[in-house]
């Protein structure tokens, strides 16, 4: 399910092109490793910049981190191992996508919770309104009879009395 969400949003949401601040000499020869390095770089923060990934940043620190990520990949680390290595070294601040944990629960849940709360609010409002309008309908007096109808009613009642 999470994977589906990842894919969906990758396609549809506001996605800036994977722009590179990377210089040519950093690029790995193995294209598969380089693709992985780039995907990882997009999720790692350049810690001295304001909200830039190391993939986007020109800062020297970002360059060091890009080289570091590639070194780890060449050494045979998996993506998760590279991430763990960097988090150990720099703290969770380095991740642009915070881990799902207790201290980030509300962060991740805010959107879905807002949606659920909204749906509940709508349902409750609709229910309440339906019940109030139904109640109002029940209490309403029956529509008044026209003069003609009154006449007929009288006539009928009086004929009944006679019989």
């Amino acid at each position, binding site marked *: 399910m999470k994977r589906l*969400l*990842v*894919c*969906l*949003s*990758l*396609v*549809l*949401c*506001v*996605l*800036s*092109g*994977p*722009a*590179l*601040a*990377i*210089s*040519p*000499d950093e*690029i790995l020869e193995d294209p598969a490793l380089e693709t992985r390095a780039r995907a990882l770089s*997009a*999720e790692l*923060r350049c810690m001295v910049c*304001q*909200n*830039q*990934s190391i993939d*986007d940043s020109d800062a020297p620190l970002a360059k060091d981190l890009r080289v570091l990520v590639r070194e780890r990949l060449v050494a045979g680390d998996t993506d998760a191992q590279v991430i763990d290595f960097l988090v150990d070294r720099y*703290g*969770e*601040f*380095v*991740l*642009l*996508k*915070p881990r799902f944990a207790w*201290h*980030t629960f*509300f*962060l*991740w849940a*805010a*959107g*879905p*919770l*807002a*949606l659920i709360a*909204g*749906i509940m609010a*709508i349902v409750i409002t*609709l229910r309440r*309104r339906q019940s109030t*309008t139904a109640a109002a309908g029940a209490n309403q007096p029956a529509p008044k009879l026209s003069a003609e109808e009154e006449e007929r009613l009288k006539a009928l009642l009086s004929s009944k009395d006679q019989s």
Partner: protein
Amino acid sequence: MLVELGHYALVLAFALTLVVSVVPLWGALNGDGRLMAVATPVSVTVFFLVLVSFAVLTGAYVASDFSVVNVYENSHSAKPLLFKITGVWGNHEGSMLLWVLILVFFGALVGVFGGNLPDDLRATTLAVQGWISAGFLLFMLATSNPFNRYENPPIEGNDLNPILQDIGLAIHPPLLYVGYVGFSITFSFAVAALILGRTDAAWARWVRPWTLLAWSFLTLGIAMGSYWAYYELGWGGWWFWDPVENASFMPWLAGTALLHSAIVMEKREALKVWTVLLAIFTFSLSLLGAFLVRSGVLTSVHAFATDPSRGVFILGLLCLFIGGSLSLFAWRAPMLKQGGLFAPISREGGLVLNNLFLTAATAAVLVGTLYPLVLDAITGEMISVGEPFFYLTFGPLMVPLLMAVPFGPILAWKRGDLLAASQRLYAAFGLALLMTLFTFWLWGMERVLAPLGVGLAVWVMAGAISEIVTRVKFFEIGPKRGFARLYGLPGSAWGTATAHFGIGVTVLGIVTSSAFQEEQVRTMRPGDTVNVSGYELTFDGSVPRRGPNFVEEVGHFTVREGGAFVAEMEPSKRVYTARQMPTTEAAIHTIGFSQVYVSLGERRNDGAVDVRAYYKPLITLIWIGCVIMALGAAFSMADRRLRVGAPKPAAKRKQSASVPAE
């Protein structure tokens, strides 16, 4: 002397906003027509005073009067005249002055054009607008005075931050501010409705055009800022989910929701209470944006703590306005009468769905923006929330919303028929399916979901066209009468269809440019050629050049396609002399809706240079779509109904005219 006059005008304006904050409101609550009549002339005077103040500051910039601290810090005598003028709002104090100018301008507009509003509503609205103006004028005078002077003026100024010396960023803030501040009018109307305890027909009619106006400028402002980032920052990205961007995006999302709920309120008298609340939220998010950007809280919670004077002041204003209006809402909203009923499947139902998803998306962005600050302040734990997070939380909320867009305008009011609506969208659905398959065929299974994105965009666009075709009954009555009906369609119908078409165009640009972009990163020597998506870029060498206040190294590239000449491109690396600050100027060549983008990186000792070249298919559609959306808003504002105004009961007018005579 002139500078002091500007300062004096600002102080006088503040004093007058205090008058307009109190007197008309008192009049409205006690039914005193003379006190209410104070509102309009005073609001107009305040506008002229702030205009004088603004003109004086601009004059100081043009004349390079470095005895003014603000001019010294942000200008330079060698700067081109255009950037001397736009430099006025390229800094904190000046941009606050622009913000206040627009704020009081809107107040004056309501005063001048509000003739068809009930007197007490106009007076109360202007009073509320006066509170906001007074708050911000006091903020300026107390913490951010642009008219401070040096006793011993320096000879030369510090120059404006070079990345702000650009025509795109010069017009970005005014557009954005008209958007932000435009929502203040809706806010003032909402608060006035709460104070008076009623929302009448005139009120309902006034909310939507003001929202449309603010929204269209905000749309253009955000698009402008995004295009600026794209060509000026030199790495080809155009949206970064930066807190500063989110600060403008949140009011946009809430404003879009407000736009739609205001339609229900205007046409069907329903959702009144919700619209009032949304109007409060939208402007609150604008204020929050101002706080986030101005206080320095974004760079670090701790930086904010060391120089908190401005931040604390805005935070105070924020709490006062948001807290005050929400309390007022809690107290008075139950007095507002509920309007018409509707079935879940109906136009109203569709608009409620729109509000549901947009509000949830706003919440997701809001929490994503503030969470790291709050977590840091409470636990000291530092986390980052960036692009990848927003893809996961914001994206999934937009997909169902976009899928639902074509249905909304086709459903009938009160009780709609989903099946009938679907039948009218067969053509749109077919076209979307066709485009999805076509994209699959073109690109293969390599990127599985991008074609679905293309299909979604086409679905939204084709759905907008279907709406128009359905409305004029093109196929039932034949093309000749169809065209006649096309001409007679109300502006609001054109507005809806155009704006929805625009959002489809933007989505298409986003999907294609991000999924099918090609990039090349190379070290190139003169004579080298690199191929991007079939375009051959030859590096011909680089030459130094001198601008008015910068020196640059310009790289010369020739673009060819299959050997045939296409264009010349000249990206450069600049150094602005006054601040010794380097910038990257990317070169962009537009082919159809797509662009070739070249920017220069590091320069090597042997004359070689690092080059980043991109081909970005259909990327201009992202911004063209925004312009189309703003155009849609303009069509909607041109609707005849909005000019005519709400009918006024004649008897009531006579009655109120006779009151002062007693």
